[in-house]
């Protein structure tokens, strides 16, 4: 109630990254978006991963067919100041189950085009996305950014534009933990100039099972590593919700729907519901479309 009365509401921009692929970034963005939307938030998903998996999962139209896509968030001068041009990038053709969710599609050309253009033409190549998202912040209740699995200029733009970030860690193997130190160092190096107020939400354990010894061990060692690093205020905490492992996640990706629609009583459905609730409360996210 209070949030909706507040005219100065600025929506949080949550970036989800880890340069390791396959740790659950897209799954998290897609299902978190669906849960936020179901709870009455106006949600915008920005897909800056050239693999465009989030676009394909959420969107009813193949991302290749869009003439306007995330490239314009970095390279088109008009979108920097003109909200109408920016609005033209947002697509509302979403698959069933994604109520109140809009998205800006990615394209396989995104990385090449953006890197080439910004290196030559931009004075502040890391802050192009930020300039655009600032214009969109009062039109949505929450914005989610799906990042590519690379420490590229795209990721750099995402961490400069975000207000919060979380890092999914797949505990089913030791691999996604390996790159974590590099990632945190990169963020720590880049953000002081471009985004000093960036808040670390914590690590999100995915495909996690507390009953399997190796996963339990990885989670614990990961906790210790975070505490040793002391990079960000809040480092050392992991998110209070973790995502279980389930075959239904893959099934939902085939069916192009949120996991809630595939398996309503699945534990992963509940995990993302709980994660959404936790973030709604912690970040005081507005639910302006709540019936």
């Amino acid at each position, binding site marked *: 109630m209070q949030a909706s009365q507040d005219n100065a509401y600025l929506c949080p921009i949550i970036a989800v990254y880890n340069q390791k692929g396959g740790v659950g970034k897209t799954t998290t963005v897609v299902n978190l978006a669906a849960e936020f939307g179901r709870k009455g938030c106006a949600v915008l998903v920005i897909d800056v991963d050239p693999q465009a998996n989030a676009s394909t999962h959420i969107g009813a139209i*193949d991302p*290749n067919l869009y003439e306007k896509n995330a490239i314009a968030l970095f390279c088109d001068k008009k979108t920097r100041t003109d909200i109408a041009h920016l609005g033209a990038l947002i697509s509302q053709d979403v698959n069933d189950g994604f109520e109140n969710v809009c998205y800006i599609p990615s394209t396989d050309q995104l990385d090449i085009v953006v890197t080439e253009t910004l290196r030559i033409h931009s004075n502040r190549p890391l802050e192009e996305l930020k300039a655009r998202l600032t214009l969109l912040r009062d039109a949505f209740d929450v914005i989610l950014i799906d990042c590519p699995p690379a420490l590229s200029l795209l990721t750099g733009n995402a961490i400069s534009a975000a207000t919060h970030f979380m890092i999914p860690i797949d505990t089913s193997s030791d691999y996604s933990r390996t790159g974590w130190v590099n990632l945190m160092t990169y963020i720590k190096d880049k953000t002081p100039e471009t985004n000093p107020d960036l808040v670390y939400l914590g690590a999100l354990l995915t495909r996690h099972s507390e009953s399997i010894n190796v996963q339990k061990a990885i989670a614990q060692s990961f906790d210790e590593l975070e505490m040793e690093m002391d990079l960000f205020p809040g480092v050392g905490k992991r998110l209070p919700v973790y995502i279980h492992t389930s075959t239904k996640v893959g099934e939902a990706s*085939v069916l192009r729907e949120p996991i809630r629609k595939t398996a309503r009583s699945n534990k992963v459905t509940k995990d993302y519901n709980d994660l959404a609730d936790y973030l709604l409360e912690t970040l005081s996210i507005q639910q302006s479309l709540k019936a």
Partner: protein
Amino acid sequence: MSTDHKKPSALERLQSKIATNGQTQLKAISEVKERNSLVSAVNEASLDIELITPNPFQPRKVFDHEKIIELAEAIKENGLIQPIAVRAADDGYQIIAGERRFRACKYLGHTRIQAVIFDADDEATAMMAISENIDREDLTDYEVGQAIQNIAHLFKKKTELSRYTGKTRSDIYRYLAFNDLPDWVKGRLNGNPSLINRNNAQLLVSFFKEADYVESQHKEHVLAAFNMVEESALTQTLLIPKIRRLIRDAENPRRQSDNVVSKKYALNGKNVGGFSFDDNKVIIKLNSALITDEVANSIYQMVADALAELDAGSDN
């Protein structure tokens, strides 16, 4: 489609969904390929500048020489950052995009120029030139109109043309109106493309079609109005009303002649009255609060004396 009433198994359902997803993606990819197939990049090379000819579809009519020199200076300092785009023509290359850069390099006396060679047909050449240029603020409506005219035949419907160029349908008709203007107007436009905007192009075309427009009699008034626009004595919005006015004045000359005098009386910088004088009458207007009866009487007397003098003169 299976004919039995058994529901498909979960595996079958997923298999068919995966197949559909795959087909959708392949279809989209081939659609995009087709969309892009008009133009395909071949390679980049350093070409003999003498082998290169300008693009016949270039919408830009006037190249500002100073701007070319400016660009030349920049190229001299930093080199040519962006290669120009050309395609193979009869015995050389034709510019698709980058005529200003080409002119600047020629100005600098370069003998070779860095270019990307495209394998493009005429239609694609026109499209590339137009899409490179159409949204530039320094291109006049006439030049955009020419460019749109060049590619108009490539589209079956105006809606497609409008979609491709990003202009509204009614704007497309305004731009295309330039082509329906008589040659003597086009001649003026070739020398000064900013003379008429797209709105006036459309208005002029319908004006020329009006029943009481007779070119042999009225052309001079149109030209006069053009001159006034060029001299900044007339704004574009008033062009057609001005032409109508000029024609009306010429056909029904008012008795009011050229010797009209109109002056103002001012006191401490404020208007307090006026003096006007034409073929019919002389009017002196003054705020009476500022004038003593004496002055008013002496004005009356002065006029009366002058009339008396005329009277006396006519007696002679």
